[in-house]
């Protein structure tokens, strides 16, 4: 059974806050979902290796310089930008 502590740890890894009033319901929901996922543990390990579907293989292209998007265009969806860069609060002092 999944515990509140585990949910809190997973939330940190997921970069999500879980509010105090959400944690009980979330633990219950996640518990149900995880016990549903647990049903696969009844399956015999048949070693049916999964490589890929439809025998796809990586497609590599030649490393050529091709036109890309203009910097201005890329920045137009950012909430904050400055001097052609995405703007964030300083990470290091």
């Amino acid at each position, binding site marked *: 059974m999944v515990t509140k502590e585990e949910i809190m740890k997973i939330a940190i890894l997921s970069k999500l806050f879980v509010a105090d009033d959400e944690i009980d319901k979330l633990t219950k929901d996640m518990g149900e*979902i995880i016990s549903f996922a647990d049903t696969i543990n009844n399956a015999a390990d048949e070693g049916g290796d999964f490589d890929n579907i439809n025998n796809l293989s990586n497609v590599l292209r030649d490393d050529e310089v091709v036109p890309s998007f203009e910097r201005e265009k890329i920045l137009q969806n950012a909430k904050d930008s400055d001097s052609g860069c995405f703007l964030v609060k300083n990470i290091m002092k």
Partner: protein
Amino acid sequence: MSESKIAKLHEGLVNKDFSCTELTKKYIEAIERDNGTLNAYVTVTADTALETAERVDKKIADGKDIGLLEGIPMTLKDNISTEGIRTTCCSKILEDYTPIYDATVWDILKKDNAVLLGKTNMDEFAMGSSCETSYFGGAKNPHNVNHVAGGSSGGVASAVGGNIAVYGLGSDTGGSIRQPASFCGIVGLKPTYGAVSRYGLIAYASSLDQIGPITTNVEDAAIIFDAISQYDDMDSTSQGRKGAPVCRNLKNDIKGIKIGIAREYLDGVRDDVRTAVEEAAEVYKSLGAEIVYFDLPSLKYALPVYYIIACAEASSNLGRYDGIRYGYKAENYKDVNDMIKKTRSTGFGEEVKRRILLGTYVLSSGYYDAYYKKAQNLRGTIISAFKKAFEICDVILAPTVPMTAFENGHAVSDPVETYLTDICTVPVNICGLPGVSVPCGFGSNGLPIGVQIIGDSFTEAKILNAAWQYENAANKFKSTDFGISI
């Protein structure tokens, strides 16, 4: 007799029975009238639609030939990128996001002068089976607005079923094209993984996602599939269509083909749905097909395998939403980490957060082997089982959904119960196979039922031909009170 709506409208345009502008205006008026009830569209692009219509009219006036898709009013699910037109994934986190490039599928159709009426509603990030996890509220079923249109491509299905669009493109990760098509009494095709480019489709689970058409009839689905199934070097998993255009292989005799029914697909299916599927099998028999029953025991693991893999991929794909480069950004925060956490916690809805958490859980240290690795291993087992099935039959017949459309509000109350309703659709995504849902009757509550025809990889021509033959023999399409009548 089954009839292509696209071909009929094309003929009308070419014969000058009506102009493209007149046709487009009729659709826009119908959207203005009916969208308040159906909630199918989240963005209406009337101006660009009329501009395209004008271009098509000029071509016709100049005596030039027009292609089959030119001037036909259509829609796109709101996770398909459209340059200069807001694309929200029906999430608060992308509420004001405007792509700077077109998805390949839209690039193809735009060059064909397809008339885009607008972008349609969906479950947030395509995560849901009722369209109700949408930030903009769910799309309604045109057969009964007290019921959902289904999900996640609920808006496209509602618009096409309610005839406020001729056709639309949706995306299918675990049934998101076929399930709403089934709920709304129309046709939905999930192509083989790799047949249609995913470039510009906002990712949910990249090894399962695939774009496909939602239409009122099988021939239209074939027409759209032929147009969009092109190799694309912007998608590293792209293969394009293999073989001749599928339209050329529609209407072929199906005498002697073997149609498989896996007994497990009928377990737990509601009685009226089971009866409708069995009746469809009888229609096939009358057309000279042979019905072969077989067992597919690994099918019982398909759902947990699907949810583990889909959520694992989602937790990684949705890591990009950090408020820095695009989308919603939280306002009051201490530092970068706090900003990212606040942005994601406020920007994502409940179901999306649940799936990110589940995905992170199954990928985290200590759980990876028990869940993710085991699920991938079982994925291999299920793929082998389907390959074996296609040694004894040409196509597989199954229900699309074990029931008809849920009542509004029902799906959101119990996540696991709702996940279980995806049982008949997820195996196709796990195996990368093509599947098409076709209307096969109405349930005891008067709502549409769909039957699914599944084929081996890259056999869209085979499944669409089988679907066309059924539709032609027992057309179960019924128009609704919405939209325009043609």
